[in-house]
């Protein structure tokens, strides 16, 4: 059995098309089988609503009098990219405001713009003979400018990972707040409602596919950046007219200590052209598997302790290392479902038609890592010998070592060279001022450490975030193998 786009569109036109959401399709195929479902169902709608950092908008303001060619411009204090013609710009959602950064960014500008709020535009120019104006400070609303085009190079990830944190401190990441020692787990993606998971071989989704975008109509304009079809991490490049969109499906967000982004609502209607598509659109949360990834390791290739299904993640808990870990989503299922329902209603009401893609998406591209031509340096390359004292020695001996070796940090160890603490020259000064005699009273026992194979930037960030100037280098047995200080990093 096969159906054509025009047959389905004809049914939509005369109101007889049978449209269901991808969630409903799971049950239908379960009950009727793929063969009957393929005959009965014409369209399956999908939806997703989550943070999509690769989002932004092209705006065109029209010309001022006298005209200006922007060199730099800001929208509500958020720097927009200008490298195009005189009064075009691209506002990216993760760009943070110069003031109130981390609280307000490009994503919020887009939400405010779509809400009809006035946006302050400030810009300057080096001036030319044809563009003599040097500065602009004005406000505008979305209806007062020419084009406002949402243009997102990477949206609608087919699936995403489940993030956990093995380290001993709370991490603030783009996957949200991750508690130490596997204290919680976060995942993203709409599971069984995810557009690309319902057409994993990109039979119907490609260049020109008409979609639900931000509450309006948008289009897929190609594969998204980092499109990785072989590993089932496909992505989409999409565009749409912001003037049709609603703030309900475009929400500016701020992740603590990470930055800003934009929640984008995106839905795709999949025509059931054949039995294969009926089967694919019946994929359930239980069949969609993803990796648990440990964000406690600050490297590109992070450990992946296990795999989990969307069903398990959506249950609220995942099983990890024999323990039950609380798990919650970063994207909204409530809105994903609402998008699939809205798209379903548009089709039922004859307001939305399906079209074959001009070209389908590639199925064989690979997501390559960045090539770094400069040599990556590690702690082991720059560490120096740690000056050490035993934990039962006299404060005076520690002070002598500081002076004799001209250092600021003495690492305290036991007889087996195991790290016990650290003492700084300031601690010694403080001990004298407060008349303390026992070394144990002045040792910092909870020491922030590093290891030989930490990249230097990771060690530097540890010093910066903890406001300290040295890290003992230890091995897996917590034996001291050196020290790295801010002096080496400068």
């Amino acid at each position: 059995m096969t159906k054509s786009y025009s047959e389905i569109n004809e049914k939509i036109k005369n109101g007889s098309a049978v449209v269901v959401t991808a969630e409903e399709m799971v049950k239908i195929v379960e009950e009727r089988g793929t063969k009957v479902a393929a005959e009965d169902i014409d369209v399956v709608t999908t939806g997703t609503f989550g943070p999509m950092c690769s989002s932004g908008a092209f705006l065109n303001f029209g010309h001022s009098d006298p005209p200006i060619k922007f060199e730099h411009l800001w929208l509500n204090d958020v720097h927009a990219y200008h490298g195009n013609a005189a009064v075009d710009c691209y506002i990216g959602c993760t760009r943070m405001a110069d003031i109130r950064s981390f609280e307000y960014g490009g994503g919020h500008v887009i939400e405010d713009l779509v809400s009809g709020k006035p946006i302050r535009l400030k810009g300057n120019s080096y001036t030319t003979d044809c563009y003599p104006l040097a500065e602009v400070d004005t406000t505008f609303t979305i209806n007062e400018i020419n084009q406002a085009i949402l243009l997102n190079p990477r949206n609608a990830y087919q699936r995403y990972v489940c993030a956990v944190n093995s380290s001993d401190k709370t991490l603030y990441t783009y996957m949200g707040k991750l508690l130490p020692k596997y204290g919680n787990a976060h995942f993203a993606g709409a599971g069984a409602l995810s557009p690309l998971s319902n057409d994993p071989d990109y039979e119907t989704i490609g260049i020109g596919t008409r979609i639900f975008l931000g509450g309006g109509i948008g289009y897929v304009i190609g594969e998204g950046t980092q499109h990785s079809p072989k590993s089932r991490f496909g992505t989409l490049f999409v565009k749409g007219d912001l003037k049709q969109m609603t703030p309900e499906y475009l929400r500016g967000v701020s992740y603590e200590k990470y930055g800003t982004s934009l929640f984008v609502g995106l839905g795709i209607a999949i025509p059931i052209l054949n039995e294969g598509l009926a089967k694919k659109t019946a994929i359930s949360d239980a069949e969609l598997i993803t990796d648990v990834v440990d964000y406690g390791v600050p490297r590109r290739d992070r450990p992946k302790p296990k795999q989990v299904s969307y069903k398990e993640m959506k249950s609220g808990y995942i099983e990890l290392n024999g323990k039950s870990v609380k798990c919650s989503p970063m994207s909204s299922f409530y809105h994903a479902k609402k998008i699939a329902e809205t798209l379903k209603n548009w089709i039922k009401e004859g307001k939305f038609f399906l079209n074959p893609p001009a070209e389908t998406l590639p199925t064989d591209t690979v997501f390559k890592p960045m090539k770094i031509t400069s040599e990556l340096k590690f702690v082991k390359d720059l560490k120096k010998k740690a000056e050490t004292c035993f934990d039962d020695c006299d404060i005076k001996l520690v002070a002598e070592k500081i002076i004799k070796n001209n250092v600021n940090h003495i690492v305290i160890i036991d007889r087996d060279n195991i790290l016990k603490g650290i003492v700084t020259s300031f601690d010694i000064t403080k001990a004298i001022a407060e008349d303390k005699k026992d070394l144990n009273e002045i040792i910092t026992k909870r020491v922030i450490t590093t290891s030989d194979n930490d990249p230097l930037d990771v060690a530097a960030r540890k010093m910066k975030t903890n406001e300290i100037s040295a890290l003992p280098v230890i091995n897996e047995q917590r034996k001291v193998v050196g020290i790295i200080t801010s002096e080496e990093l400068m």
Partner: protein
Amino acid sequence: MTIINCTLPFGIIRDINNYSKIINEILKFDITFNILKFSTGSNGVNLLLDVPEDKIRTITESLKKNNVIVNKKGRVIVLDNCIDCGACISLCPTEALYFNGDYKLEFSYEKCIGCLLCVDSCPRYAIEEM
């Protein structure tokens, strides 16, 4: 009805007139509430108020305007700009933040212990401590 714990510091409360002024300001909103406990301590007057759940914000704001300390280690409320993502749920140790059957976020004041772990997990600043 829900319970608010607040302190009227001695510097602000010198006599019954100061006290009445603050309480009358809440009464202006035409809200019925109970004073469960009235006590004086070394820091000032401590009050335990039983207030309607939907009026917590109005009352808290009115009290704060008068420099009343409203239960600093307080519980949280979820404001209208919540987008039901759920990023807060995994931070909550007591299931006070949870999804209902439609995956809309719900908050149970009774279950909340005021640990405040969730507050900075919200990408919409929709969680506020009281």
